């Protein structure tokens, strides 16, 4: 787990004068499951294609196993890719698709047969060898694509939104399947997705990207619990983000009140962003709360309600299992560990305010709910 396999150093990529990647520095360890996560246009696919050798960076180097491979064409790299829409060869059947790489490498026939059949078992497609690829379902095609890449026993497998075209249920199954295959083979996976849930549940390491830059690298739990800036806090899950002032270590002031928190190491009186996750907020009777607000909207989400609560003109999202009708006055309590403090960044003030709740909510979850202001 510890050996470094790939290192990207100061990668910059420009298309027609437009900067797509801006100083990417990243290392990937052997046997790691690393995910590049970000909204569309953040540069994650570009990064993947540079690793695959389909693009040459404008500046910077790609180091593989200690050697610069900038000028090594894709067909000479020990890296294979699972493409966004599978890119299976329509003129070949399942077996021939999987055997393609081995045949190009001129492997003996018996060995090809053995390895392809083994691979068919790994991806649970035993007996499908003679099927035409266009006769398979999306999930099956996906597994052929994975088998076709894995059968070459690459050192690294690149996956470009491999589950994007599948429906939700199938996606969940395939997530488990992929994780299982990765653990079984021990091959390094570099996975690209815009789905934060997918990233958190599968990865050893998550790299959050936006605007061609890496915003944060870390374990899924760290990314979620300790977002580095407002973008990460907002992109990974839901967050209420407020302006605050760090009075001293473990003391933060916002909404005119001083709260105890678990963060330290800031300058005295440094302006900061305060993150409070909607699911961490405890609702209490108004007279027992640290803050008192009025419910202005409520949406039933199945597992819980999303309610919008107004505190002194600022609207928060709170997730609760109890029903609070619009107009109800509630109090909330914030425990020190529920409060996360971040340095101010270019993203400050752009996220975490639910005053314009509906639009933002739609955009993030792609799930239309009832909207109320």
């Amino acid at each position, binding site marked *: 787990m510890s050996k470094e396999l790939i290192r990207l150093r100061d990668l910059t990529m420009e298309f027609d004068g437009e900067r797509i990647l801006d100083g990417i520095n990243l290392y990937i360890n052997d046997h790691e499951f690393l995910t590049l996560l970000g909204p569309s246009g953040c540069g994650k696919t570009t990064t993947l294609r540079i690793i*695959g*050798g*389909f693009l040459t960076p404008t500046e910077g180097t790609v180091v593989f196993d200690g050697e610069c491979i900038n000028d090594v*064409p*894709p*067909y000479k790299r020990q*890296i*294979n*890719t699972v*493409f*966004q*829409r599978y*890119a*299976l*060869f*329509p*003129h070949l*059947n399942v077996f021939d698709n999987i055997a*393609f*790489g081995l045949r*190009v*490498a001129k492997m003996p026939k018996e060995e090809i047969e053995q390895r392809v059949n083994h691979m068919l078992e790994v991806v649970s497609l035993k007996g499908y060898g*003679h*099927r*035409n690829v*266009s*006769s398979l379902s999306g999930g099956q095609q996906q597994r052929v694509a994975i088998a*076709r*890449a894995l059968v*070459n026993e690459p050192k690294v497998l690149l996956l470009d939104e491999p589950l994007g075209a599948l429906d939700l249920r199938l996606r969940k199954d395939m997530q488990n399947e992929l994780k299982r295959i990765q653990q079984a083979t021990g091959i390094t996976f570099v996975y690209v997705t815009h789905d934060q849930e997918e990233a958190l549940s599968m990865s050893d390491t998550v790299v959050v990207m936006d605007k061609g830059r890496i915003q944060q690298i870390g374990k899924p739990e760290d990314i979620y619990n300790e977002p580095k800036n407002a973008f990460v806090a907002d992109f990974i899950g839901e967050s209420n983000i407020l302006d605050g002032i760090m009075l001293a270590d473990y003391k933060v002031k916002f909404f005119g009140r001083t709260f105890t928190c678990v963060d330290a190491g800031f300058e005295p009186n440094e302006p900061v962003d305060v993150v409070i996750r909607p699911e961490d907020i405890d609702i209490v009777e108004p007279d027992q709360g640290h803050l008192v607000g009025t419910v202005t909207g409520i949406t039933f989400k199945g597992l819980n309600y999303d309610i919008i609560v107004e505190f002194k003109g600022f609207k928060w999202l709170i997730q609760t299992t109890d029903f609070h009708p619009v107009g109800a006055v509630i109090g909330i309590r914030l425990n020190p560990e529920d409060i996360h403090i971040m340095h101010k960044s270019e993203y400050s003030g752009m996220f975490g305010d639910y005053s314009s709740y509906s639009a933002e909510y739609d955009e993030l979850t792609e799930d239309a709910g009832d909207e109320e202001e």
Partner: protein
Amino acid sequence: MKKANRVLTILMFVFLYIPMVVLIVASFNTGKDITKFEGFTFAQYGELFRDKDLLGLLGNSVLIALLSTAISVAFGTLAAVGIHSLKPKMRKAVLSLTNIPMTNPDIVTGVSLSLLFVFVGTGLLNQRESLNFGTLLLAHVTFGLPYVILNVMPKLQQMNPALTDAAMDLGCTPVKAFFKVIIHEIMPGVVSGGIMAFTMSLDDFVISYFVTGSDFVTLPVEIYTYTKKPIHPKVYAMFTLLFGLIFVLMLTMNLLQLRSDRKKASKRPVSRGWKIARRWVAGVAAASLVVGCGFLFANGRQEKTVLNVYNWGMNMADGTDGTMDLVAEFEKRYPNIDVRMSEYESNEVLYSKLKNGGISVDVIIPSDYMIHRMRNEGMLLELNFDNIPNFAYVDEQFKNPDYDPENKYSVPYTWGTVGILYNTKYVDEADVTGWELMWNEKYAGKILMIDNSRDAFGIAQYLLGYSVNTTDKAELQACADKLAQQRPLVQQYVMDQIYATMENEEAYIAAYYAGDCMLMMEENEDLAFYLPEHQGFNLFTDAMCIPNCATEKEAAELFINFMCDPEISGANMDYICYASPISAAKEYMEDYLAESEIVYPDEELLNKGTSYQFLSEETSRYVESLYQGATKINSVSTEEEPSGKPIVWVAVAVLAVGGGTWFLIRRKKKKH
């Protein structure tokens, strides 16, 4: 409504296919007449397969089509891949450029290619024969390429671009990726493009006509010379087979398409049988290509001397109708010489072909005045009469003629007269009083006028009593006016087309060469020949010469000598029905010919004939322009008028270019 629709559809198909059905039926007809079906027979097919010349021409066409298709497919596919990888803006621009040759009128493409080939070949590379097999092939590739590109591009655009990445990802170099993956994806486009290029090449006439040399002629180009004379039914048989070939090709293409569509729809894997069929098709294609190349190679390696003879149409006995096949006979006597015949239809055409350059011929047979002109312009080589001992047989009166006073450049081939051929069934004998018959309004629309300036002016000159060799502009203008006056009465201006029209009685009166008139009289008994002796008539001689573009002078002299053999000359006259300048040949001719007064008019009559002399270059051109004005355009053109014409054309061109540019710019703006 639905019924009406169906009826219309059926009518449309009938309309589309009826000509083909007529042709197919005609190919199985026992009789020669296309209007009457006399019985079913395969005889025409038998004749077709015995006709080595025709099959050879068909072979030429198929060879050119196969080779040009193979080259077009290879380069077109690569070009399409290249164009596809360009940025969208550039791609569009390049695509519209490649499409232009397809929409360009063939005649423009043909002429410009011909100019280019002659310019490069003769001008830059100093080749004697710049138009040849290679240029023909290049031309066919030129118009085949766009079809391949046009068919392959959409397939490339439909293809998932990630497939190339996937192939490279799995270890393929870009070239390997092309052959292992991309080619399979774009195959339907490649095949349909190839089939289109093949059919286009197979039936191309216009472009081929301009870029083909004398050594390699395709079927359509040769058939063009046939249509002016009655077509032999074996040609129908060949057309039927050709139609069959194209039909099968198209059917295959459509089945392929259907198959691939169905494959996608049913999501079934490709069946084994189909795979085998595909392999078989590929095998046949490859084999025919190899055979084609082999044929070409064999042709190219021939060590025989190739003698190119450029002659009038139907002006040498070829073995049909029981005559002697002179070429075969010559090749039998001189096994090291391979004779290739090609044909021109008038002295003027011969002259301009030679003048334009790009072809190489060894023997030509122009008429007297044209020999004079060519001699003046240094276009002829002096003959070595040591190689032509048979020249001794030529009658004294044909030696040292006006057009070649020292007899250095020519050996007479035939001689004859120009007179009037008329149909006794329709023409009143009382009207047959002289050349004015050609102006008789009673027969308006049934008169055929000879279609070349010299003979047409000659007729007017005899009628008006001028010298046929006058250079007086006023007299020439009067002749032109006379011809213009005749124009509304004339059904058609014709050369070889006269045969069918007169034999089928579509026209009643025509002016033409005596020998040809004899042939027509054999076919239709009601035809008669008349020489207006009181007014005068043309007495012409055709003679064999060697042009200065010749490469095989010695073989050419052998050939000329061979033609002067009285026995050969006699056999030749049996076929062409002209008079031989070799009296000894009469012994070998059929009696009716040797004794015919039409072929051999008596001395007294002959003295009333006059022959054309070469006028000056300037007068020739003046006569030609007067002729065009009098016969081709409604108004009689005057000298001043032509200077105004080019401006009109320039204006049209400017308008077209301007309009086109404006249209393009507007379209582009709309897009943005």
